[in-house]
């Protein structure tokens, strides 16, 4: 197990897909064979396509009775050996939170695709938002890490979903594809390459499935039915899964290791994309669909001679504090446009040495390039 190269299930070539459909195709390509979910706008297209595609290839699809059970079934299937996923939007994500913490604590690979809509509460079900960034990281109780990607195109909905599965399997961690309504419903060309690189969880008979001496290393993950007498529990446990709920050392070691295994490997996970950074006076830090508007705005500003840079977060969690810190030393300001009340801006302030200017738009609409252009002009 580990890395392998497989043929893409779809014939290579150019396709015209929506972002949500591309997620489903990416999942199939990555080897996902279990989908458990509950319908919710604006993510249901992924579920419908998975129902169809898993039926064709002999995978398992189940529409559960709610989101609590959807993520529970995904975790159960993962321990039964499946690469497993669910997709949802804000209200569903809120319901999944307890079991996402369970997945983090039991080191269960699983994929949660969150197609963000305008919240809070039922909010604007069909409109765009990106208000779940902090919930994805901190939504369940206790201290734990997750990985989250932030796709900006249909291509990245496909490639990013494959990547998400590889991260989940490799680091045994719940991994989010944090899309938004705009990228989920966007239709554009998707290029399917002939080969896909996939990672399959590592197994090793008899070795403790919940501990490793080196915190960077990920313990092997056996599967139910292999005779390993697996003890999986969401209570504090030792390396073999035995409950140790009153041992301070065991708890402290476990919580630290679960955080360290992601944070010490972040070099391998964190991914940013940067343009026009070298001489920039103001850099726009962006992610998700808003990065598309930002790129247009930054190019226009450059054409007019303004020294504006572009930095896109392809992964949101773990947060690229090191890179933001470096960047902040060369610019006067970091400008962060977001479809929430400043969630990433607030995070960037933790590592930035320069002023971070937050621009928030929470009206259920995408932030237009001209708005970003004008707002950046004000701080130049």
């Amino acid at each position, binding site marked *: 197990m580990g890395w392998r190269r497989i043929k893409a299930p779809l014939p290579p070539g150019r396709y015209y897909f929506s972002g949500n459909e591309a997620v489903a195709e990416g999942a199939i390509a990555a080897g996902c*064979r*279990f989908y*458990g979910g509950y319908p919710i706008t604006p993510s249901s297209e992924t579920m419908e396509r998975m129902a169809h595609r898993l039926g064709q290839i002999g995978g*398992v699809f*189940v529409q*559960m*009775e*709610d989101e*609590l*059970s*959807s993520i*529970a*079934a*995904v*975790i*159960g*299937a*993962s*321990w*039964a*050996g*499946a690469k*497993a996923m669910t997709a949802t939007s804000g209200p569903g994500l809120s319901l999944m939170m*307890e*079991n996402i913490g*369970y997945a983090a604590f039991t080191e269960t690979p699983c994929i949660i695709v969150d197609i963000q809509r305008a919240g809070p509460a039922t909010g604007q079900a069909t409109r765009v938002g990106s208000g779940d960034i902090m919930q994805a990281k901190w939504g369940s109780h206790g201290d734990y890490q997750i990985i989250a990607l932030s796709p900006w195109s249909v291509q990245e909905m496909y490639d990013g979903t494959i990547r998400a599965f590889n991260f989940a399997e490799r680091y045994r961690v719940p991994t989010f594809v944090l899309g938004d309504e705009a990228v989920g419903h966007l239709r554009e060309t998707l290029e399917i390459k002939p080969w896909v690189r996939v990672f399959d969880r590592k197994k090793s008979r008899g070795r403790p499935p919940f501990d490793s001496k080196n915190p960077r290393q990920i313990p092997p993950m056996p599967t*139910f*039915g292999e*005779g*390993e*007498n*697996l*003890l*999986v*529990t*969401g*209570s504090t446990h030792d390396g073999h*899964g*035995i*409950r140790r709920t009153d041992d301070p050392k065991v708890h402290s070691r476990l919580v630290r290791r679960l955080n360290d295994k992601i944070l010490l490997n972040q070099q391998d996970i964190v991914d940013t994309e940067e343009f026009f950074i070298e001489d920039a006076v103001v850099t726009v830090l962006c992610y998700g669909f808003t990065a598309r508007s930002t790129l247009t705005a930054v190019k226009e500003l450059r054409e007019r001679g303004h020294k504006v840079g572009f930095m896109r977060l392809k992964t949101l969690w773990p947060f690229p504090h090191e890179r933001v810190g470096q960047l902040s030393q060369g610019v006067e300001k970091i400008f962060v446009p977001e479809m929430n009340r400043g969630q990433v801006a607030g995070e960037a302030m933790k590592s930035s040495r320069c002023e971070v200017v937050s621009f928030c738009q929470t009206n259920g609409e995408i932030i237009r390039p001209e708005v970003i252009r004008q707002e950046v002009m004000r701080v130049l």
Partner: protein
Amino acid sequence: MVRAMEQYLRSEIPSTPFCPGCGHGILLGLVLRSIHALGIDMREMLFVSGIGCASWIPSPHFNADTLHTTHGRAIAFATGAKLYNPKLRVMVISGDGDLSSIGGNHLIHAARRDIDLKVICANNMIYGMTGGQVAATTPLGSTTSTTPLGNPDRPFDLCKLVQAAGGRFVARHSVTQPLALMESIKKSLSFEGFSFIEVLSPCATQYGSKNLLESAPKIMEWLMENCIPREEAEGLSPEELEEKIITGEWGYVETGTG
């Protein structure tokens, strides 16, 4: 017999965490004896539980794959594992609070789907682990830590509930009826489809102490007096049946499969 049962228990776990006289310990033994009687290889079994004293019956004691989940969600986790690997024989063992209150929705939906799960509900008529609060299974009028003046609500009849949701094999027994209970567990193990066994499992510590049944022998005696097999109940008048718990099997029983 006792020595023969040791193979089913993890040798590294010195004892169970249950109070003396807790019904859950008896149920633990009866589940393992049923498995032993059928000669089932524990490597084929997956035990899934939620949160509560009852959820500790399989985890960490059983020498098999165990999945100790979140409160109420055991059936949903089990559904994912069973659907992905139908070869696993999946048994859910959890409490009345876990399965019928916080997890009630998963219970009825799994019954409706007729998914092959063997669900055993250890019903002590109370939230044992958290200190004896009222449950959806607490008898009308009982005193609990959250109903100091007596429970104003009627309890669920769990067997009827599951049957109405589509469960094809349901049974109810008390741990004071070990032979009948084992027969039903064995049937459920060889039954293909959703099966549900409600097991009256006394909790003197949290239920008994507040309801004049403060010792394990007293609450056992109470169960022995009040649990009546359905065949016997047929001859009794409604007055005689008041406050009685009718035990037995209901629904379609298939044999020789699995």
